[in-house]
């Protein structure tokens, strides 16, 4: 019997088409567009000017404020523009556009493939290195890693959980990373453990990735304190709170953080990036992206430089099929639909999914029949039908008491609704309004 979280959850078709496609390196594009806000928090400030020559890995924008992350040039070449560019949402935001010339790296990065297992740095040095390399959580939330690696004084952390769940259908980038870069990932985990000062780490992996489980389980014998837990396939197991519950039985309080139960959660991809940053002094300038879809001719997992246009990735996967109706940046449950494909890959891009036309449209909305399936699917114990109505009718005070802010927007409710109601659309609207309301109340 595999472990899992107790309440709610759904099991959408897995569609892991690219599970056996090894990671291939995508050729460099001719230009890259690097947005200054690829993370949660304040946008970075550029430290280069129009016309500056940059090397691969060179700092081009500095973190501004505590919650922020530095950005490094993913390519070598010349900065052609620094101007607002429409990002994946269609709204404009500042970005640095670089014309690619060759691929000349900064000298400090060790580009050899040799595994460096021995950790020489102190805790403080590790955190500093992660900040300098612009590391953010690669699971999708893109929260700056260095903040999560520092345990505030007075709080205690006794366990690290590594999220290798990848519960979103279609996506396989973490899966491939675990198989192909097992020793590096585990070294990264050991580094994070050292930074946090914990002696045990658990890697949670869903049972639909038996090869990843056996690979890491075998390798973990050589690493002290790391164990692998196989989890039942259930969405949204990759949700931080659900993963902690599944692995440890601890329950993060409503409105709280994992640290409230002595746990820090990091993604597998982040662990690998930590390894590269700390042992090889390599900034976060590339990541693994799954490009997939039912009619894509050559789906695969690609190692891509940040700033590469999504269109290039789709080209590498055999081009956009004619029947494409929707392009999603991220997983099918929580990803963002793109209005156009000339937007860049950012630190948070875990996959590009191309949906054929019939699947890309939502079904006709019917009246709510109060079946309660959304409530039973909600892993947070909320009542999506109620929250959605309250948001639609602008009854935000009531929505707040019904814990709308606990919603993690996993989309299980809208997935499961037989009447095809856009539950999450309205809940998300209500949630942002309530958060704004609460913030205003505090500042008053």
């Amino acid at each position: 019997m595999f472990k899992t979280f107790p309440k709610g959850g759904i099991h959408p078709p897995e569609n892991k088409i690219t599970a056996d496609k090894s990671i291939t390196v995508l050729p460099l594009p001719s230009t890259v567009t690097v947005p200054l806000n690829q993370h949660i928090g304040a946008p970075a400030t550029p430290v280069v000017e129009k016309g500056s020559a940059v090397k691969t890995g060179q700092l081009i924008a500095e973190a501004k404020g505590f919650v922020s992350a530095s950005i490094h040039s993913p390519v070598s070449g010349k900065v052609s523009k620094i101007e607002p560019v429409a990002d994946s949402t269609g709204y404009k935001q500042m970005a640095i556009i670089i014309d690619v010339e060759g691929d000349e790296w900064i000298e400090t990065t060790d580009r050899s493939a040799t595994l460096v297992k021995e950790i020489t740095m102190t805790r403080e040095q590790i955190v500093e290195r992660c900040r300098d390399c612009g590391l953010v959580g690669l699971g999708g939330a893109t929260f700056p890693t260095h903040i999560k690696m520092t345990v505030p004084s007075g709080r205690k952390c006794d366990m690290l959980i590594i999220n290798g769940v990848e519960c979103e259908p279609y996506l396989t980038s973490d899966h491939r990373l675990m198989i192909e870069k097992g020793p590096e990932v585990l070294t990264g985990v050991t580094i994070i453990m050292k930074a946090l000062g914990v002696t045990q780490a658990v890697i949670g992996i869903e049972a639909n990735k038996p090869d990843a489980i056996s690979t890491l389980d075998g390798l973990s014998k050589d690493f002290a304190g790391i164990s692998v837990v196989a989890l039942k396939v259930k969405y949204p197991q990759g949700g931080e709170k659900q993963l902690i519950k599944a692995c440890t039985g601890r329950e993060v309080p409503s409105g709280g953080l994992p640290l409230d139960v002595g746990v820090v959660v990091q993604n597998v991809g982040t662990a690998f990036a930590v390894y590269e940053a700390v042992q090889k002094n390599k900034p976060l300038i590339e990541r693994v992206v799954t490009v997939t879809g039912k009619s894509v001719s050559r789906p695969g997992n690609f190692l891509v430089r940040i700033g590469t246009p999504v269109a290039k990735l789709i080209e590498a996967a055999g081009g956009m099929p004619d029947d494409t109706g929707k392009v999603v940046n991220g997983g099918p449950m929580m990803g963002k639909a793109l209005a156009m494909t000339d937007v860049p890959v950012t630190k948070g891009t875990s996959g590009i999914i191309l949906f054929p036309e019939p699947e890309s449209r939502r079904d006709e909305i019917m009246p709510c029949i109060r079946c309660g399936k959304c409530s039973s699917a909600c892993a947070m114990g909320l009542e999506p039908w109620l929250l959605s109505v309250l948001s639609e009718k602008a009854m935000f005070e009531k929505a707040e008491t019904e814990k709308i802010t606990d919603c993690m927007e996993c989309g299980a409710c809208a997935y499961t609704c037989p009447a095809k109601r856009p539950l999450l659309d309205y809940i998300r609207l209500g949630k942002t309004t309530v958060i704004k309301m609460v913030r205003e109340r505090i500042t008053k």
Partner: protein
Amino acid sequence: MNNILNVSPSPHQQSSETTRKLMFGVVIALLPALAASVYYFGTGAVIVTLTSVLACVATEFLIQKYLLKTKTSISDGSAIVTGLLLAFNVPSNLPLFIIVIGAVISIGVAKMTFGGLGNNPFNPALVGRVFLLISFPVQMTSWPVPSGFKTGYTDAVTGATPLGIISEGVKNGESISALMDKVPSHMQLFYGYMGGSMGEIAAAALILGGIFMIWRKIITWHIPVAVLASAALFTGILWLADPTKFADPLFHLLTGGMMLGAIFMATDYVTSPMTPKGMIIYGTGIGVITVLIRTWGAYPEGVSFAILIMNAFVPLLNMYIKPRRFGKEVRHG
């Protein structure tokens, strides 16, 4: 790039479950019971069912098309389910015009006045049934006696239901053991050999439908089990206290509309609570009220009234019985 892409908020996938599939799932689950009543009551059952379904669908169509002038929603199958359930709740020899009146009340009054599917506080089929029971007491309580398949429609021999016999008998001071000889045996009751409304008689067929619905995840076990268990418990206590005055629990479960009510009527999505805890309270309420009406009320049968009464409590149950919130009982910090 010439494709114009679709953009919507997440999630970008939806399950294959639809309202229509759920409704037709219920229809399939009702088929064994329909077959049983055709077996026992003959063509009357077919005529009543067809009339009721057609009248319900037509009423919904006409109201939406000509009165509300909105898009018609008859294809969602909910009117068919209401029609079937209404037919199941009336005797198989009921004059057709009465069925049509019942259908108009069910759909027109109990469903469309409140805003159509999803907004009705009371189970439409039951509202129709109770309306008919009060308006046409004679026709609604002349139950045909099961006589095997036959083609006659209104010429059936009528008799009382087992519950009616017991209720009448107890009132006249007869003992239960004596009365038990006048009603069919428990095994006969299980297979449906008794007088009663068209679809309520065959407990075996209804249970089969219920298992199908639980298997297909159309309903959960909570409501049927709560109704049946609470009714069994309550009648069990009464029976143990005085077996000469009260019938045994199994008799109560197998007779009247208990099975039909517990499995198909009480579990109607729109008029039942949404949390498992709420469902159990709701089901228990139905079980207890049914037994109260059967034992001490003026009517020999009380499932319809019990469900309608508990329907009224559903908004309250939905408001106060909340699912367990994740991270609620844990103290902060």
